[in-house]
């Protein structure tokens, strides 16, 4: 393909398709996003800084990033296990379970939010079991973690699963014939092959969790300084017509999200190169 690219391309429609792509991209995405950055120039740097470092806002960053991190870690562990079980083992109903893993992508976040709240409230199916143990989930920061775990659940499974499937059985057989036990084979042979995928899945789950709104606000309780996420701060400021302040907080989130996006693209690029090099 690389060699073909050097030849003169005879297919039509390049100008039209690229022109339309750039126009549509600019109108829908780039110009509106730039509006956020331009709006913040209404604030002086000091005002901007005061808004984005206000104690209530800082508390929301801590909750949003902390809960997203914990959710993504839970997903890294259980997502890896899920991918492993789905690829390696056979059990009744596996195909249905495999399809259901994508539920958080398909289920509207508001529905997920009220469903999780109903289940984890103190009178809910799971909440009523946890209540006697002294664990309150709904309307606490733990509820935020539960919602963010739900929303990021498919990412690790779906990035690790194809890599596990693609592993050659021969390398494991070789390890076994050389005297490695299963645990050694896993840590020395399998894990080094899948960890870039695991890291990518973790980063995707984390990035998705940071911006999440719908599934969190129902279960969080939204108490300032305790269970109020950053996207909700933006909404609250908007409802008070504090557009410049809302936008300032939004810009902080945008910058972090963009950095994460570039990091993830870099990871995926590195990971693809590593994969093609090993074949």
């Amino acid at each position: 393909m690389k060699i073909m690219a050097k030849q003169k391309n005879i297919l039509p429609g390049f100008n039209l398709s690229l022109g339309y792509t750039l126009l549509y991209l600019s109108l829908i995405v780039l110009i509106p996003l730039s509006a956020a950055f331009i709006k913040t120039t209404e604030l002086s740097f000091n005002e901007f800084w005061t808004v984005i470092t206000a104690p209530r806002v800082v508390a929301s960053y801590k909750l949003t990033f902390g809960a997203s991190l914990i959710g993504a870690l839970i997903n890294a562990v259980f997502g890896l296990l899920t991918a492993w079980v789905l690829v390696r083992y056979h059990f009744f109903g596996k195909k249905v379970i495999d399809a259901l893993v994508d539920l958080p992508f398909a289920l509207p976040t508001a529905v997920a939010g009220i469903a999780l709240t109903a289940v984890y409230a103190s009178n809910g199916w799971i909440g009523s079991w946890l209540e006697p143990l002294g664990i309150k989930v709904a309307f606490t920061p733990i509820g935020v973690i539960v919602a963010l775990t739900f929303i990021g659940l498919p990412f690790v499974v779906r990035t690790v699963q194809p890599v596990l499937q693609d592993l050659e059985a021969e390398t494991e057989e070789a390890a076994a014939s050389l005297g490695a036990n299963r645990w050694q084979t896993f840590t020395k042979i399998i894990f080094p092959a899948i960890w870039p995928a695991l890291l990518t899945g973790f980063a995707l789950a984390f990035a998705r969790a940071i911006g999440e709104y719908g599934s969190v606000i129902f279960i969080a309780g939204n108490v300032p300084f305790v269970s109020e996420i950053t996207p909700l701060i933006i909404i609250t400021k908007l409802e008070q017509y504090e557009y410049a302040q809302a936008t300032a907080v939004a810009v902080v989130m945008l910058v972090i999200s963009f950095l994460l996006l570039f990091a993830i693209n870099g990871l995926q690029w590195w990971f693809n190169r590593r994969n093609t090099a090993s074949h």
Partner: protein
Amino acid sequence: MTIQTVSPQAVSQYSKYNAKVARSRATSEPIWVRWLLTFIVLLFLSIFLIVPLAAVFTEALRKGFDTYITALSDPDALSSIKLTLIAAAIAVPLNLVFGVAAAWAIAKFEFKGKSILITLIDLPFAVSPVIAGLIYVLIFGLQGWVGSSLIDHDVKVIFAIPGIVLATVFVTFPFVARELIPLMQAQGKDEEEAGLVLGASGWQILWRITLPNVKWGLLYGVILTNARAMGEFGAVSVVSGHIRGMTNTMPLHVEILYNEYNYAAAFAVASLLALLALVTLMLKSFVEWQVARNAASNESA
């Protein structure tokens, strides 16, 4: 952020491994480990996925089937269903056309800045839905860039249907393009060039060669776009203004009913959205199965 699904092509590629993997004792775990791991995974998926899903339907039907039907035939519920369908009916075709155009330019041609363009197409996945709504308020809102001239011409975008459609288009922007770009890159352009040599026009090539070749990937992208379009909450919530019977989509209607402690009705509308999610998952599995089957028949041929 990114909806990272295993593309149907990837599934087909790997399905052959499933068939041939018959593991010996040396490369599998003792039976108790297998049972334990399977049990842990099923427990994890139960408490995070299956129980909440079951709760939606149980809560919806808790007060009986009549209440359920009444909740769904409420005029506000019906108008929210209608608005959700309208938003999806506009957003899906727009992003479909964009996805095909972007994939054609990126997959069939070489140009500078291509990888930047691919990253920019992914941007909407990296943006919080709340911010997706906010940026349109900044442009079309009362104090926005074009807000005052909109008022002069008596056009409402924010707190009206156009704003809801725009926000929906934004959050579903990359799905079709992301699905088509790798697929069309992998297919190369030999067939299109052959068509051109035989005298086909550009549109004929698109309709007769390229689109039939990517039809399952296209369908896959459309299914994902539609599911997100109908279910979007955060972005739409910012631009809608929550006017009952006017600018409420189904997810927003669920929120209003829930906040009014009308749980049965909230879960009734939510159950429709959950059904939509289940249909989406089934269609997705069907497309993956089709692609795997096609790949298998290509291999044996």
